[in-house]
């Protein structure tokens, strides 16, 4: 879709025209584009165009040591990097038969849920901005920053924490961290009524989002949609509960669902999920001090580590849906193949194309942000 590749064509007179929506457009999430065919302002056809963020992760991973890839994987999805680390680590652990210590598992849950809250706050901001409400975006990003402070403190990295390694986690918690975590959680929770007034109950947003980008449960299942987008159609499926990993089976949390399947329902599901993540984190704060022991299992010399031959498919619930890694080892020092199945590869491509048809041009951004599409996951 670069200008030099795009030739102006003489068309017969018609009310139909083509428009390049993105890659540099405030209404598009990340570097991504939709090529839309319009009649007036109604979309007749939409074609997703990705690749602007392709960095060749899967090829790069085949060329690096097992341990080096840990620094690579979180970069696949910027807003929600933690599940990437975990999913890859889980795959290596499964191939090696490593048993992760209890304490490390709880620390991982803490990291994942913090990341989920941060990702949802980010999404709310972007989504609100599509209806012209920029204040929510400023708030969301500012509040997310408090979580990034926590990440910086306990992992050393604000965005790419690189906290998980195969076998466990890298660091023990700093002194007094759980207290500071509780304070931040209290603060985020205290902010939610303000968010409700500014965004979730704001008629500017509600009227735009209700009935926009509707997807029925049957369509969602047929199109392979997962995560909050599927739950917004009324199906309570969550990898954390239905295909449990780490210690999620020991935690109490609900799976919020909505029935209407539109942009409004998807946003509400995320709003409720944020509360559930806070609830999970509170349980972690309560239980973690009583769990002692090592934070990682001993691994061989990571620079001369030949992971036993085999293949595994690991799944994690990221803030956007089902995230999976298919990892193959041929017994060598580097992975033979790593396939990343980002949740957005479904709802940012085929689903978005289908849902855009028949909608109005101004609703494309609304639909895309309500789906929480993450183009870097698609491009990898």
């Amino acid at each position, binding site marked *: *879709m*670069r200008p030099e*590749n795009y030739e102006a064509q003489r068309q017969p007179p018609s009310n139909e025209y083509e428009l390049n929506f993105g890659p540099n457009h405030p209404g598009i999430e990340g570097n991504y584009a939709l090529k839309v065919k319009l009649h007036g302002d109604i979309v007749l056809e939409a074609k*997703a*165009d*990705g*690749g602007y963020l*392709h960095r*060749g992760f*899967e*090829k790069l991973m085949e*060329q690096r040591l097992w341990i080096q890839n840990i620094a690579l994987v979180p970069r696949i999805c910027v807003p929600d990097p933690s599940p990437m680390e975990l999913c890859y680590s889980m795959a290596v652990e499964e191939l090696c038969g490593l048993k992760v210590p209890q304490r490390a598992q709880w620390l991982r849950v803490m990291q994942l849920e913090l990341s989920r809250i941060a990702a949802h706050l980010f999404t709310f901001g972007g989504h609100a901005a599509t209806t012209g409400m920029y204040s929510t975006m400023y708030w969301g990003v500012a509040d997310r920053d408090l979580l990034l*402070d926590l990440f*910086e*403190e306990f992992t050393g990295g604000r965005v790419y924490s690189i906290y998980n390694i195969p076998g466990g986690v890298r660091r023990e918690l700093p002194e007094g961290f759980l207290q500071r975590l509780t304070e931040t959680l209290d603060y985020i929770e205290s902010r939610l009524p303000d968010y409700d007034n500014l965004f979730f109950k704001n008629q500017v947003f509600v009227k735009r989002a209700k009935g926009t980008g509707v997807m029925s449960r049957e369509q969602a*299942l*047929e*199109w*392979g949609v*997962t995560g909050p987008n599927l739950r917004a159609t009324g*199906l309570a*499926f969550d990898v954390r509960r*239905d*295909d449990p990993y780490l210690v999620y089976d020991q935690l109490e949390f609900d799976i919020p669902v909505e029935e209407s399947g539109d942009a409004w329902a998807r946003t509400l599901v995320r709003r409720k999920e944020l509360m559930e993540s806070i609830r999970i984190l509170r349980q972690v704060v309560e239980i973690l001090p009583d769990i002692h022991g090592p934070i990682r299992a001993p691994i061989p010399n990571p620079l001369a580590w030949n992971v036993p031959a085999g*293949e595994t*498919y690991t*799944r994690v619930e990221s803030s956007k849906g*089902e995230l*999976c890694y*298919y990892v*193959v080892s041929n017994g060598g020092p580097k992975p*033979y*193949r790593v*396939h990343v*199945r980002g949740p957005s*590869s*479904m709802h940012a*491509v*085929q689903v978005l194309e289908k849902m855009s048809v028949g909608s109005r041009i101004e609703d494309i951004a609304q639909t895309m942000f309500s789906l929480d599409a993450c183009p870097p996951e*698609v*491009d990898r």
Partner: protein
Amino acid sequence: MSQQVAHWLDNLLKEIEGIEVRRKSSRRVRVDVPADALPALLELLQGRAGYIHLSAISCVDWIEDDEFELVYHVWSYESHSLVSAHIRIAREPGVYLSVYDLYQPAGFFERDIHEMYGIHFEGSPNMEKFILTEWDGPPPMRKEFDSEAYINEHLSWQEYNPEWLQELVAEGGGVIIPPEEQRFSQKKK
């Protein structure tokens, strides 16, 4: 997956010839089938066992065996289990059937595999380029494609040594932030 369901699934899968079923854990089943039996297997899994969600299609290039391995991961929302169906196809000509009629998500994965490995899926709705729009080299995920060699052949290296970097190196490199100026020691209390 309950014992009963597992047993039932095993019996169901016996209907296909040449199939090999391995239970890896309570929620993971590995199935190896001959390539021509895969559509029948998926139809059976989807229609009679509730595996309605195609989670992914993964491709592995086994260059030494001169074969591609395609892995279809399907999930059942009812029995909460994942079946990974493995098939092998010849590297040349690298052609296989699309399963888009059964699972719509296949459209994306097949297009991706086509782009990265050059496998053609017959009957897939869209085999156009998606990620590598302006790429005219060989499919890059194939094992014989050496990205470093490609770069050395097609691109040139550039010297990058600006003044600020030279100064930094002359000072011994890196920047030291004293503890009292670090973000956390500042913020607390």
